[in-house]
């Protein structure tokens, strides 16, 4: 039985339905990440799990118990807020002890639990300080510490790293991953940052406009995105999309025509299956920037260079393929000038195909 289970959860604010029926489940100890653009409802969904937002329709189970209408405190979940939401008038110790005091835990155990969490997060020297005397990273640790001490069934994180600078964010990301491994806890994490999603998650839930677009492991989402939205969202830099026309089907592979293709066409096999398109149909070809190679014996695409960004060890190349722009990520520093024409190759297994409606083929 799943540890966390959402069944057709809906959320309405007045006439507007912001969560339009989400079902998913998570096993004990799993790290689930909700990812999606702003306004997709990921934070609302998390707050519904926490009990901070009412569930308009549907059912929510935690550890085999229906908690759809349960008080937040009785759900045995804890949450790390984007804003940290520390109690500013209390010391770090009091901040972490507050929940335990509410639960009437004996003082000796409170001391022991807070001390233990503080050691794990390396904030044991800060216990007497007030939040205002802490740096952003330290505040974040206190917020995490506050949720650890309560030994919750589920940890909820609402974009916890978005207020930190890039370096600290990378560091805290690693620490949260380590924490998950050491505690073996079930975590649900909301972010709009696909890198956080890819690196932290056992399972990613991609949301858009209140609906689940796809649920899967990071690798699944990367290799087999269900549609153009997921394909564009997962991976950095973004996947390139080239609109082309189906010329015909040749033994399971689709022959696709586009003026930029070397020889006017290329062949690719669908990876998902389902009904094949007919000749003359529109088709969208997805090419990941990191899969395109500049020095190829058998170039597939002819591109015109627009601009290059030197990243030091690698170069991000912006090029045009007719009306579509194509980005390439290539090692080294290619010697080319804007306006130059060049060929780019790709392993046919790395070509993604989508039909006119955006569904993966």
């Amino acid at each position, binding site marked *: 039985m799943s540890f966390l289970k959402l069944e057709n959860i809906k959320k309405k604010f007045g006439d507007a339905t912001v969560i339009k029926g989400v079902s998913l489940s998570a096993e004990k100890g799993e790290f689930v990440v909700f990812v999606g653009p702003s306004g997709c409802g990921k934070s609302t969904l998390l707050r519904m799990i*926490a*009990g*901070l937002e009412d569930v308009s329709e549907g059912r929510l189970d935690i550890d085999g118990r229906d908690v759809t209408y349960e008080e*937040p*405190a009785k759900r045995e*979940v*804890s*949450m790390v*807020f*984007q*804003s*940290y*939401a*520390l*109690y*500013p*008038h209390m010391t770090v110790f009091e901040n972490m002890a*507050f*929940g335990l005091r*509410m*639960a009437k835990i004996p003082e000796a155990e409170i001391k022991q639990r807070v001390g233990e969490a503080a050691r794990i997060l390396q904030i044991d020297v800060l216990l007497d300080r*007030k*939040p*205002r*005397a*802490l740096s*952003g990273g330290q*505040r974040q640790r206190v917020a995490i510490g*506050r949720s650890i001490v*309560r030994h919750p069934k589920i940890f909820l994180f609402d974009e916890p790293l978005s*207020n930190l600078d890039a370096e600290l964010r990378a560091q805290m990301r690693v620490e949260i991953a380590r924490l998950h491994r050491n505690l073996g806890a079930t975590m649900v994490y909301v972010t709009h940052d696909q890198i956080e999603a890819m690196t932290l998650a056992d399972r990613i839930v991609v949301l858009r406009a209140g609906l689940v677009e796809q649920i899967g492991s990071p690798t699944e989402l990367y290799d087999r995105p269900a549609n153009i939205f997921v394909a564009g969202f997962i991976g950095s830099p973004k996947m390139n999309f080239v609109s082309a026309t189906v010329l015909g089907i040749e033994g399971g592979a689709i022959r696709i025509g586009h003026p930029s293709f070397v020889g006017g066409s290329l062949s690719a096999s669908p990876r998902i299956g389902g009904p094949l398109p007919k000749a003359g149909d529109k088709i969208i070809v997805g090419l990941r920037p990191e899969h395109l190679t500049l020095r190829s014996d058998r170039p597939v695409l002819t591109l015109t260079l627009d601009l290059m960004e030197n990243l030091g060890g690698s170069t991000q190349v912006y090029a045009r393929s007719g009306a579509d722009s194509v980005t390439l990520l290539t090692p080294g520093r290619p010697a080319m000038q804007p306006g130059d024409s060049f060929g780019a190759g790709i392993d046919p297994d790395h070509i993604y195909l989508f039909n006119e409606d955006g569904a993966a083929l």
Partner: protein
Amino acid sequence: MRLSSGTFLHALGLTAVVVFSLFPFFWMVSASFKSQTDILASPPVWFFMPTLDNYRAIFAESQVVGAVVNSLIVATATTLLSVLLGTPAAYALARFEFRGKSDLWFWFISNRMLSPIVLALPIYLLALQLRLLDTHLVLILVYLTFNLPIVVWICTDQFKSIPPDIEQAARLDGADQFTIFRKIYLPLGAPGIAVSAIFSFIFSWNELLYALVLTRRAVQTAPVAATNFMSGYELPWGKIMATGTIIVLPVTIFALIVSRHMVRGLTMGATK
């Protein structure tokens, strides 16, 4: 230390303002220690032989001491009740949606739109019927109607500035509504509560109109006692100034104590 001309002018301006506002206060206090001759001397005497005669006289003959005690009872009770009743109301107005919220809010504001004298006669008649004339209770009740709106306004605004995330974190930590109010809103709203308490206290302390209308001898308050000197042929300035000094003293002490809580940025570090 060298001062730039800008800093110097700034300091000069500030000094002028401070002297201007504190001079009447200084004049009152110094006159309370002068003899009637020194007070009326022209040009004014700056160095004089201080005397406690005025204080001795008012403690001996007038009702000033009793009046100050009455004022203390009324002002303290009003302030405590205003804060006790006003802060939960402010919390509700700041954080909850309920039917009639905006009407209630307007009602609080409209309470202060009315000139107090408009209600003087109806309230007198009410007090007469209820046999409350010349009691502490009647003044406390009347002052409460004027002070509650102030407490509610200031505290609602203060509570709204507390990030809602903090309340939600407390809810997840298992705190109930009342605990959240007590452990989060009261301490974090302290600056606003302090300001509104000072306003309440000062208003109740200084109020003259209702105190004149609703009390006789038993519950005479300090401002009423001060006006008692305003009769007869000669104005005993020394006694009036001594009375004034005694009247001002408790409010000043109260304001000094409470102003400790009037610090900005109490919620700093909670969120970013």
